[in-house]
């Protein structure tokens, strides 16, 4: 097996925890991929910030209706039983605790659940979108991310160094190497790649991993 999960495999793993009938918001970009990997027999209902509930896959190229898009401005289709609503009602769903799961990307996650995913610092143009709302209100706020940055530094840290999106909001992190819960402001290791030792994993993690009695194998199909 490879030394780490691909993005598709991380998305696949996150998809396994979404229950049938769950209301789910997937952040723009990488998290959108989670929708592809719903287990057979389960159907989540996807919410997009711009006012659609129960949308489906992208239409074939050339058949896009640009009035029917998701928060990432990509063309979508509707499933039977969809609904349109305005932006205030849409964020009432988000902020009001009506979503079962929100899955976001991350630059950094701290062991206390702090998330940084909107700004890499004072340079450039800041842009926050819906992330600061999404991290509050959803019953579970999960992150999918590579375990380390492109140059190998840990993304799971004692404390975030980049501007925060929200404090104490993340409850589970799906990485390329592990599945980690955040409980009582600690990283609790739930699953790791079977070929990797706890010490190896700890060496690329910026805060101490709490080790429960049982640690599962993180195994994803080839995708």
């Amino acid at each position, binding site marked *: 097996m490879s030394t780490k999960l691909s993005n598709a495999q991380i998305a696949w793993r996150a998809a396994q925890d979404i229950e049938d009938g769950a209301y789910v918001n997937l952040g723009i970009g990488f998290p959108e991929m989670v929708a592809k990997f719903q287990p057979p027999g389960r159907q989540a209902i996807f919410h997009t910030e711009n006012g659609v*509930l129960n949308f489906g896959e992208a239409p074939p190229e050339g058949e896009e209706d640009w009035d029917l898009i998701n928060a990432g401005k990509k063309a979508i289709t509707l499933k039977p039983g*969809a*609904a*349109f609503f305005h932006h205030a009602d849409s964020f*009432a*769903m*988000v902020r*009001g605790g009506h979503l079962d799961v929100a899955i976001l990307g991350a630059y950094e996650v701290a062991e206390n659940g702090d998330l940084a995913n909107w700004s890499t610092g004072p340079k450039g143009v800041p842009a926050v979108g819906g992330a600061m709302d999404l991290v509050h209100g959803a019953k579970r706020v999960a992150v999918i991310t590579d375990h380390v940055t492109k140059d190998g530094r840990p993304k799971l840290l004692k404390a975030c160094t980049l501007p925060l999106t929200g404090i104490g909001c993340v409850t589970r992190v799906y990485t390329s190497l592990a599945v980690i819960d955040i409980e009582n402001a600690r990283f609790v290791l739930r699953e790791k790649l079977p070929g990797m030792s706890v010490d190896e994993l700890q060496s690329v993690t910026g805060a101490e991993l709490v080790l429960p009695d049982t640690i599962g194998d993180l195994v994803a199909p080839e995708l």
Partner: protein
Amino acid sequence: MDKTVPDFATALAGIEDGMSLMVGGFGGSGAPIELIHALIDRFKATGSPKGLTLINNNAGNGRVGLAAMIDAGMVAKMICSFPRSADPRAFTEKYLAGEIGLEIVPQGTLAERIRAGGAGIPAFYTPASYGTDVAEGKPVAEFDGKHYVQERWLKADAALIKAELADRLGNLTYRKAARNFSPLMAAAAKLTIVQASRIVEPGEIDPEIVVTPGIFVTRIIEIADAKQEEALMREGVAYS
């Protein structure tokens, strides 16, 4: 996913003593009479639920619906804007006897507090009631030279709602002015129980005309020939 349920027992499961209960409707328009009467039946058979806090614009009329709940002794407190009606005996007698509590909330504030409960807004400011007895004890603030009262969100353990169409995912439409508080309450309750005049398959309600998206709905029961509280009143019906 299918949120429809076959009977009242399943529809009303989880409504327990001491809970807060939002009930849709403005007078008879939108009042979910069958759900209310089924809850009264349960109380008469089992003694529960009692000690309820009821949230509705009014406090019942005549001897049916909310008035019959109050008469039956299920209600400890009423949160409403206008506890008067053509025949407000049920509430008035208990209130003057000190047997039922009352929190009076201006109608727009009541609507906005429920909306805030569903939308995750814990508090907001409104000009309504500033400088009046109703604002006593509430924080006030000045914005742009005008005074406002701070009001808190209002949520409930359960809501009883009357809809027109419902699909199996819980998307709802309403009928005329029967809409009133119901879309707000559906979002503000943990357990939202809907009686719909007709249940249809997902896709049969145009996504453009959905008023309450299914995310706010827990269970749906079909009541094809729902009664109208006002009509029952005029027929002199007493539910007991």
